[in-house]
């Protein structure tokens, strides 16, 4: 009893659990009992969204537009005209970059017309030979960081070329090269706006929160409705998806500029504009460039998923391969994507860390040596390509471009490997699979689904109250009320169950692995590096190996979720434990505790708030992965979002479902963050 008085929160929690169980037992599961399931009062919301969108697209503010085809003015709705123009511009940019990389005629067509091309057959925009792009990347890597990065870039480009994925890889790259700068510009713009104007900031913050917890798929549906299907729609979805982190980091960076530096700028007589461009942005350079890195990574992750709405490139091929269950090919493509991700990540980080050199005393050659080398490579590359025409008399000129799927392939090897695994471990895997599904997953799913809605509310809001008082309770209550009033409460429960399972396992693995690795400096460094690398992989990629091993089942999704979501749990555990002040550790050692006691009594409690922030990330990661798992067949919210993609009027459903997922994430986020902040300030380590 004393225990409860000493820890009032604990007693509150016990009472909450008792009440929760009582409600679960007492409430009668029937469709008409609103204590069991709330009526779906906002089931009309998707329709409302659909109607307003179609009004906007087809009836809102018609304007007269001159149509050169029929040589007449035509009445067209404003928004549609706008999105059409935008699509056109984006598409042109993508095609332009793409043709620089792999050649083509579309850019020329754009200025002249197809007829012109047909008349002048020789007209063709030549590609940059792949050797030039590859060596160019190596030079870039070398100039930014040195030999290591150059080597990495070299290996990556070689791999892509040799395995015959050059063309789709360049298609993906062209996509990223357009989406990333636009996201960057938009993010910078809104970030600056938010920094300058308090009102804008308060408006932006909740928007950013939602945007960063919405699953990838939810961006696809609106993009499709407004912009149609194709590369441009994918690019636009990507841009919207990748901008929020840039906005965040820009605001953060600008806020961190020391106020005296701003004052110094003002006293030097800067105008507003000069202050921004000559003082604020350069001083916040590092944070802003970290934002660029985020943008690039998000773009790449999205570039894969955007293949659902017709974006070409590696993602599209990967999707095809997965659909045909050609695991070997999927694996090769996956490695390509991962390599591109890692190289782009390292390049942009190196750029962020690079301090600008002052060139005052250097000669022209020294200043421009990398550019000059590249120029030489360019000439050399074309020369080589020209020579290639003599060497490879028939078939393909491998010195110029390596056509798709005409490289080496290891598909058969992998396929054989998979077959072997299946043959050898079939019964083990099957047994494990069945055990997991029958003994753990089904009961858990059943338990979640047999929770009356009021009991869920009591539990969630009660935890909110215990952690953060009435305010927190109302906030999380609001989030799940939205979900409860849609018609997808059961689906949301399934999503929640899968996420919970994933998070639990991830957290346990993450904390154990993290704790072990944190014991030594070298192993900490190593595991952080591993986490960094794995985190750059687009989430989609994780599905490939698990499908390989477990086929298309819930188990596969869950294992992918666990692998993916363990990353932040591990990382934050290591960071948290390494961050415990040395003085406290010494104090512990002095008072004669042994290693394990020190870990349990001192390090873990002090590191725990930080670890919880990791768990917070784990939840978001797990949610994203569960939703993406819908691709290989689960029956949660993700499945419905995916369906919305193929539905003409999917936008309402797509958005509402996306919000549901975001709100689950935000509710958990709110609880954990509040707890962590309180705990940190109680421990005096904030």
């Amino acid at each position: 009893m004393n225990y409860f008085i000493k820890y009032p929160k604990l007693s509150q929690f016990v009472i909450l659990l008792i009440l929760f169980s009582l409600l679960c037992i007492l409430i009668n599961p029937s469709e008409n009992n609103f204590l069991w399931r709330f009526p779906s009062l906002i089931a009309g919301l998707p329709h409302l969204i659909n109607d307003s969108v179609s009004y906007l697209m087809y009836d809102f503010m018609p304007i007269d537009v001159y149509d050169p085809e029929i040589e007449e003015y035509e009445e067209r709705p404003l928004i549609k005209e706008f999105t059409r123009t935008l699509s056109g511009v984006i598409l042109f940019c993508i095609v332009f970059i793409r043709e620089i990389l792999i050649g083509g005629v579309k850019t020329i067509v754009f200025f002249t017309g197809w007829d012109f091309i047909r008349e002048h057959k020789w007209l063709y925009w030549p590609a940059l030979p792949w050797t030039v792009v590859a060596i160019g990347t190596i030079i870039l890597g070398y100039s930014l960081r040195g030999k290591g990065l150059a080597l990495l870039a070299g290996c990556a480009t070689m791999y892509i070329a040799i395995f015959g994925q050059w063309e789709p890889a360049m298609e993906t790259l062209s996509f990223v090269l357009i989406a990333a700068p636009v996201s960057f510009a938009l993010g910078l713009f809104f970030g600056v706006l938010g920094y300058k104007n308090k009102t804008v900031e308060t408006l932006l913050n909740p928007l950013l929160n939602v945007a960063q917890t919405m699953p990838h798929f939810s961006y696809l549906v609106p993009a499709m409705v407004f912009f149609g299907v194709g590369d441009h729609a994918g690019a636009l979805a990507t841009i919207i998806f990748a901008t929020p982190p840039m906005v965040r980091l820009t605001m953060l960076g600008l806020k961190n500029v020391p106020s005296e530096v701003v004052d110094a700028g003002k006293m030097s007589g800067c105008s507003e504009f000069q202050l921004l461009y000559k003082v604020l942005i350069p001083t916040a350079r590092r944070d802003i460039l970290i934002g660029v890195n985020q943008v690039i990574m998000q773009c790449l992750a999205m570039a894969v998923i955007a293949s659902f709405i017709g974006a070409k490139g590696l993602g599209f091929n990967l999707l095809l391969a997965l659909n045909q269950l050609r695991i070997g090919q999927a694996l090769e493509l996956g490695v390509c994507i991962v390599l591109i991700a890692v190289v782009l990540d390292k390049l942009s980080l190196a750029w962020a860390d690079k301090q600008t050199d002052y060139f005052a005393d250097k000669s022209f050659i020294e200043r421009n040596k990398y550019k000059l080398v590249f120029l030489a490579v360019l000439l050399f590359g074309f020369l080589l390509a020209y020579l290639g025409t003599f060497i490879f008399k028939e078939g393909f000129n491998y010195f110029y471009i390596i056509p798709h799927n005409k490289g080496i392939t290891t598909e058969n090897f992998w396929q054989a490997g998979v077959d072997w695994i299946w043959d050898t471990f079939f019964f083990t895997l099957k047994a494990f699979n069945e055990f997991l599904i029958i003994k753990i997953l089904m009961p858990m799913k059943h338990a979640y689904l047999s929770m009356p809605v009021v009991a869920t509310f009591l539990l969630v809001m009660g935890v909110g109250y215990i952690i953060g008082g009435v305010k927190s309770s109302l906030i999380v209550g609001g989030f799940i009320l939205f979900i409860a009033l849609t018609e997808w409460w059961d689906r949301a429960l399934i999503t929640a169950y899968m996420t919970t399972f994933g998070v639990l396992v991830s957290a346990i693995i993450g904390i154990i692995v993290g704790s072990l690795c944190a014991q030594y400096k070298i192993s900490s460094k190593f595991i952080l590096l591993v986490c960094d690398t794995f985190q750059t992989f687009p989430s989609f990629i994780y599905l490939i190996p698990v499908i390989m091993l477990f086929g298309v089942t819930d188990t596969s999704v869950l294992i992918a979720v666990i692998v993916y979501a363990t990353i932040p749990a591990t990382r934050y555990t290591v960071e948290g434990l390494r961050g415990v002040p040395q003085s406290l550790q010494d104090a512990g050692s002095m008072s004669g505790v042994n290693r394990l006691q020190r870990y349990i009594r001192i390090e873990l409690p002090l590191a725990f708030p930080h670890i919880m922030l990791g768990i917070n990330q784990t939840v978001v990661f797990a949610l994203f992965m569960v939703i993406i798992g819908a691709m290989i067949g689960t029956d949660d919210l993700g499945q419905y979002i995916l369906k919305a993609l193929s539905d003409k009027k999917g936008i309402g459903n797509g958005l509402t479902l996306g919000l549901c997922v975001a709100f689950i994430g935000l509710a958990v986020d709110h609880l954990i963050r509040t707890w962590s902040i309180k705990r940190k300030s109680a421990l005096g380590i904030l």
Partner: protein
Amino acid sequence: MSLITKSKSSEQAVIKCESLYKIFGDNPELMLKKSLDSVNAKEFQDAGYVVGVNNASFEVYKGDMLVVMGLSGSGKSTLLRCISRLTEATSGKIFIDGEDLLSMNNKQLIELRRNKMGMVFQSFALLPHKTVLENIAFPLQVKGSSTEDSIKKSMEMVELVGLSGRENYFPRQLSGGQQQRVGIARSLAVEPDIWFLDEPFSALDPLIRKEMQDEFLRLQSILNKTILFVTHDFDEALKLADRIAIMKDGIIEQLDTPANIVLNPATEYVRKFTEDVPREKVLKIESVMDPLKKSEKLSNLKVPYDALIEDVAEDVLSQSKPVGVLDGNQKVIGVVYSSKVISVLFGKRTSNENKNM
């Protein structure tokens, strides 16, 4: 001293403040109006407001150095920031060369800063992405000077502050003292009339600080700017100041010459503040001079009337005969007896002595 002050009051003040107030809070204007010109820091604090500057009125003349002194949070920086208009004053008037600062629009303000003001900051506030030379050239470039001109001018500044050979270094490659030299050079690049310095040497260690103070005095003897200098170090104030303003809770408790502040503290607070200051550090020979008697035999040593007692005490005491005092034209105008010097150095402070000033 009195002579100098008198001659100045006829010319126009470079900086002039009239009942300046700065109050932080949600609606400071209203709060100020309600208080009917008698602002009490304590009452304001209870109402959720912070008083930064409280009814400050003073003038600074050309070539004068006013040092603003006070404990942390007394409003020194706020006063400085009001006069440079980095923060908007809540009420009151500020005139720069007779022009109303607070009624200037943005453009006029930028013009003013580009041509007349320079500022040095406690944490140096250099731009991390620019080299020493570029940092110094920054105000010139912002102003629109040609690159050639601004580089030439900046090189002069680099030499002036003794950083030759390091002009292509980045701030992060310099020591604190060197960084502050860059800060000083930058603030001087546009040849401003008014020079603001907010605790420029506080972040430096004592040895470097002393070196920088001497450097600063050297620069001022060449440049003769009108200076507003903020510090919380009384020794520094004594060393540099023509006049000192002592602030407490936003109020200027006393604004006077160092000697007067030490000898005639206006308030209890100032008295406490100056209690432990050795008087030989502020008193000049003038103040212990006796009239010349015809018959007296003087020592061969002569001291100028405006020398600090601290600086000449040892020499005066080593003489057996009284020492003559010279005025600016090297004419003997009085004598100093060792006994008087001894009483300043070791004697108790008496009211009688105070009257001597």
